[in-house]
C-alpha cells in the first residue's frame, strides 16, 4: 500500500457494508497504551520519542500476524498527506498537528491503525464498517495481546492501564459508533437524543472527533468512562443504545415521508440537482447536500447512486483527497471548482452506467 494509492481505494468505513449500514457508518474501538519504562509523551525529549518509535516499530515487525502493516513516519509527511490520513480517520487530528518523531502503522484494509507517540505512546484503533463492535473488540483485543507479548505496558494493580490523561485510565478504551442521523436533525429531535445520552455518560461528537462539528449530520457516540467497568461492559453500554437511536432515526424518516413525501422528495432532489450541476462548491455545502442525498438513496428516492458511492463522495470531496486525486496543490477557490467538477463527473458516470447495475 502506497500513500498515493489511498485515495483510489475505499477505506473500511466508506464501504457502506456491515449491519445497519444505512444509518451506522462505522464501529471503532481504540486502546491507549504506554510503555512502562518511558515517561509519558508530554515529558519525552526527542531522544525518548525516537527510542519509543523505534522500539515499537521493531517489535511490531516481530509479530507475524501483523506483518502486512505499512509504516508511515507522520513527522516526515507534508501537510496534504497528513490531512489525507486524518480525513480517512487513520490518524487523529492531534497526531497530524503535533511535532516530533511519530508514526502510524496501517493494515492494507485500513481496519487497523497503530499511532505511535500520540497523546499516549500507543493508540491502537480498529474500525469496522457498519455496526459491528464485537468484531472490532475481538480484533483489537488480539492485537493488544500480540503487542503486549513484546512490550511492557504501564499498568497499575488498582488503576489498570496508566494513561497520560486521567480521563483514559483503566481500560484506556474508547468505543465509538458513527451514525448518520439526518431525519433526527430535520425533525429537531437530535437534541433530545443528546440529552438522554449525556445522562448515561455517553459522549456525542462530530465526524472528526473532539471539537469537530456535526458536519453532514454525522454523529459519533462513545463512552465517557474508562475505569471501573470491563471492556465488554463498556462496549455493551454503547452497543445497547445504538439500536434505539437507529429506531428513532427510522421513525423520524417514516414521519417525514408520511407528513409530506413531496416536500422531502423535493429537498432531496434539489440537493442532488445542485451536486450534479454546480460549478463551484464548498466542502461544507457538499457535506450538507450529500447528507440529503444519502438519505434519498436509503429511502429509494435516488436510484443512480449506492450508499458506498455517497460515502466515497463524502471523503473524496474533502480538501486533501481532492488535491491528491488531482495530483496538484489547490487554493480554496481552486478546490471549490475541482470539487464541483469531481462531483459532476462522478455522478454523470454513475447515471450513464444506469441504476439497474447498482441494485
Amino acid at each position, binding site marked *: 500500500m502506497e500513500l498515493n494509492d489511498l485515495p483510489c481505494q475505499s477505506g473500511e468505513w466508506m464501504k457502506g457494508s456491515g449491519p445497519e449500514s444505512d444509518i451506522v457508518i462505522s464501529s471503532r474501538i481504540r486502546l491507549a497504551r504506554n510503555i512502562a*519504562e518511558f*515517561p509519558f509523551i508530554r515529558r519525552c525529549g526527542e531522544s525518548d520519542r525516537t527510542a519509543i518509535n523505534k522500539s515499537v516499530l521493531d517489535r511490531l515487525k516481530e509479530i507475524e500476524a501483523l506483518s502486512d502493516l505499512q509504516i508511515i513516519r507522520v513527522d516526515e509527511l507534508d501537510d496534504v498527506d497528513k490531512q489525507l490520513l486524518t480525513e480517512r480517520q487513520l490518524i487523529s487530528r492531534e497526531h497530524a498537528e503535533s511535532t516530533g518523531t511519530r508514526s502510524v502503522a496501517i493494515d492494507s484494509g485500513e481496519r487497523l491503525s497503530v499511532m505511535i507517540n500520540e497523546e499516549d505512546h500507543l493508540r491502537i484503533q480498529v474500525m469496522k464498517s457498519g455496526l459491528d463492535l464485537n468484531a472490532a473488540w475481538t480484533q483489537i483485543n488480539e492485537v493488544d495481546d500480540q503487542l*503486549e507479548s513484546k512490550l511492557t505496558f504501564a499498568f497499575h494493580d488498582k488503576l489498570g492501564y496508566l494513561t497520560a*490523561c486521567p480521563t483514559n485510565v483503566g481500560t484506556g478504551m474508547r468505543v465509538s459508533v458513527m451514525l448518520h442521523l439526518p431525519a433526527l436533525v430535520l425533525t429537531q429531535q437530535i437534541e433530545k437524543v443528546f*440529552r438522554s445520552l449525556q445522562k448515561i455518560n455517553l459522549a456525542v461528537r462530530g465526524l472528526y472527533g473532539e471539537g469537530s462539528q456535526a458536519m453532514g449530520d454525522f454523529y459519533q457516540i462513545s463512552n465517557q*468512562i474508562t475505569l471501573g467497568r*470491563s471492556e465488554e461492559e463498556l462496549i455493551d453500554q454503547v452497543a445497547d443504545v445504538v439500536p434505539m437511536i437507529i429506531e428513532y432515526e427510522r421513525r423520524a424518516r417514516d414521519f417525514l415521508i408520511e407528513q409530506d413525501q413531496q416536500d422531502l422528495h423535493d429537498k432531496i432532489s434539489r440537493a442532488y440537482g445542485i451536486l450534479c450541476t454546480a460549478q463551484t462548491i464548498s466542502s461544507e455545502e457538499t457535506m450538507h447536500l450529500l447528507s440529503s442525498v444519502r438519505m434519498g438513496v436509503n429511502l429509494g428516492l435516488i436510484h443512480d447512486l449506492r450508499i458506498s458511492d455517497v460515502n466515497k463522495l463524502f471523503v473524496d470531496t474533502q480538501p486533501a483527497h481532492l488535491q491528491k486525486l488531482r495530483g496538484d496543490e489547490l487554493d480554496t477557490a481552486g478546490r471549490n471548482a475541482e470539487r464541483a467538477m469531481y462531483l459532476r463527473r462522478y455522478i454523470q458516470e454513475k447515471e450513464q452506467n444506469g441504476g439497474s447495475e447498482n441494485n
Partner: protein
Amino acid sequence: MKCLECEKPATFHITELTGPEPQELHLCESCAQQYLMQNPESGVPAKPTLAGMLAQQLKVADTAKELSEIDEKTCPICGITFYEFRNQGRLGCPHDYECFAEELEPLIVNIHGEIEHKGKQPIHHKQSTQTQTRLIQLRNEMNDAIAREAYEEASELRDTIQRIEAGEEE
C-alpha cells in the same frame, strides 16, 4: 481562530442546537466554561471539563498556602509539578499516579465514578509499579550520562535496564 468573547485562541467549538437554527460558537477554554455553566437552556448540567473539575477541587483546599503547596508537589521521577499537570491536563509519567495519588483520586472518582480497574490485565509482562518506576529512573540517569559524555556509565545503565526488562533482575 479567535475566541468570540476575548482575544485568546478558540479551542472549544460548540454547536448549539437548542435554538431554531444550529448555532456555532468558537470560544477559549475559560469563556467556554462560563458559557456552559450559565446556559440554562440545557436541562442537564454541562459535562465539566478536566480543567473545570480541577479548579473546583482546588477550591476545596483551605488556604492559599495549602493550594500553593499542592501546586509545588513534584514527581521525583519525571519532574512534573502538580501545577503543570493542572495547567496542561496531562501527566508526566506513570509514577505520577502514585506521587499525586491523594490529589488525583477525587478527580478520578469525579470523572469515572469508580476507582478500581475491572478490565483486562497484561498477560505476558506484568511488572510491579516499583520496577516500572525504577526503569524510568534508570533511563533518565542513562540519558543524563550520555549528555555528560560518561559513556561507560551509560552503557552500564543500559545493561541494567536490559537485565530488568528481560526479567533477570527485580
